[in-house]
């Protein structure tokens, strides 16, 4: 693998670390299997891309993308909490609806951002090449988001959020309004995913309505893979596991696609992803089941 390919893998690994943090919040903390992310990732990309090509400030564009993602998560939570639709189905409904919404926002299936003023533009004027500075900038973003998330989950509200996922009946008896917790948690989760989508579009130089396909599986692969490496016994460790998992996953994919002897090509990405997730789920179970001694 070349240095550029390696740093490229790190870069997208860091972006998907944000997705993994969002998925950790929904799948693990709230125990809410949320497929909205397949829609909120391109939503973040679409909102920021449209604003950027229309000459708006990229910071504002990214900020609004995050808010749009939060709204998408809120809708999924609302369908589940208020309308009592099964969580998985609620998230699928939002995801499907977002496909149309994203097309409407962009007005076309694809928006190029080449030559536009993005968050990453200031980095281009530096002496260091972009393939070094971009991953460093994203590392900073991930560290800040992760630190804030850990601090939040250890706060009084964060603890209530964790109890909501683990034992909602007990949480209610302790005065936790579990409905609001789910709405807020889902909003936060999808805000993180939309941020990832926005950054992905700005670093790749385009937003595409199909870019969300399989984001959920990649994110889940990162969470599960990370947990296999770092045991998530505390919030801090669980969050670190997401980040490590996302980066290693991207490296593994880059490696697999780079190895000529496997004969894999870029179009095999989703197949490889699914197989990796399957292995990550099954292998730890197999290891436990083996008789000891």
């Amino acid at each position: 693998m070349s240095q550029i390919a390696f740093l490229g893998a790190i870069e997208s690994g860091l972006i998907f670390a944000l997705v993994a943090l969002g998925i950790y919040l929904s799948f693990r903390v709230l125990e809410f299997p949320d497929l909205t992310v397949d829609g909120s990732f391109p939503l973040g990309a679409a909102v920021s891309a449209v604003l950027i090509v229309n000459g708006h400030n990229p910071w504002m564009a990214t900020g609004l993308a995050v808010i749009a993602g939060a709204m998408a998560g809120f809708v999924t939570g609302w369908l589940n909490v208020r309308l009592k639709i099964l969580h998985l189905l609620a998230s699928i409904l939002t995801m499907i609806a977002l496909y149309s919404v994203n097309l409407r926002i962009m007005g076309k299936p694809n928006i190029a951002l080449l030559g536009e003023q993005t968050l990453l533009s200031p980095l281009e004027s530096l002496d260091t090449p972009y393939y070094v500075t971009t991953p460093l900038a994203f590392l900073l973003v991930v560290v800040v988001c992760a630190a804030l998330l850990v601090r939040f989950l250890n706060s009084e509200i964060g603890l209530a959020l964790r109890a909501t996922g683990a034992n909602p009946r007990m949480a209610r008896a302790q005065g936790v309004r579990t409905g609001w917790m789910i709405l807020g948690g889902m909003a936060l989760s999808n805000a993180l995913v939309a941020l990832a989508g926005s950054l992905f579009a700005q670093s790749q130089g385009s937003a595409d309505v199909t870019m969300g396909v399989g984001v959920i599986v990649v994110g889940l692969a990162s969470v599960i893979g990370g947990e296999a490496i770092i045991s998530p016994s505390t919030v801090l460790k669980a969050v670190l596991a997401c980040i490590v998992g996302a980066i290693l996953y991207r490296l593994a994919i880059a490696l697999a696609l780079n190895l000529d002897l496997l004969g894999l090509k870029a179009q095999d990405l989703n197949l490889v992803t699914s197989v990796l997730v399957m292995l990550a789920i099954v292998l730890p179970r197999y290891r436990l089941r083996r008789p000891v001694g």
Partner: protein
Amino acid sequence: MIRLEDVHVRFGVGTPLETHALRGIDLQISEGEFVTVIGSNGAGKSSLLNALSGEIAVSSGRVRIDGRDVTRLDTAARAPLVARVFQDPLAGSCEFLTIEENLALADARGRRRGLKPALDERRKQPYRDYLARLNLGLENRLQDKMGLLSGGQRQAVSLLMATLQPSKILLLDEHTAALDPKTSAFVLDLTRQIIEEKQCTALMVTHSMKQALAVGTRTIMLHQGRIIFDIRGEERSRLGVKDLLDLFSKSQGETLDDDALLLG
């Protein structure tokens, strides 16, 4: 002061499985009273408890706590007034959270939760002291996951959790029923101590007539959704299990054939 006024609870209205779990309960519990509730399966004990905690909505009637009408409030909204220990040791605490996190969660009952850290050294010390009274060595295991504790230990911690913050009524839902006899006695003893010490108003559901008479200041018996007797004071202190059974057949004109209730 807790008041139930003509409370009815119906489940599955309009379906073949419609049940009328509570049929007009009138009950007044004064401050500091410790009421034990007995009754056979399906008598309405759990419905009574759930109607008080807000977990089920009453079909008609009023629930008042300290004069405030809470009939329409859900569990979370009543939490500042009502504390609860569940029958299932797994239900009353979060197994994925640590012991100290569970305590912190319960410590915030009835208070507004904010973005302050849920735990810091200043807050941990009282938890440690409180746990130490159990003599289970849990004060040195604050960071252990709740799921590592035995059923009895979890029930003991649940009891501490329920009484960390004051409440208008403490609901105990057969909280010793799932434990072995020795542990059950330990938890019951602890219950008695804490209730006396904190002067809680409490309502304890139990399957055992002996237990119902042994603890508390007042005993009510439910049968088919109604209160069939309500005894306290000197009258209560003179009664034994046998007298309770007589009382039951006198009021109902039938004999009680629930083995689980007799054996207790």
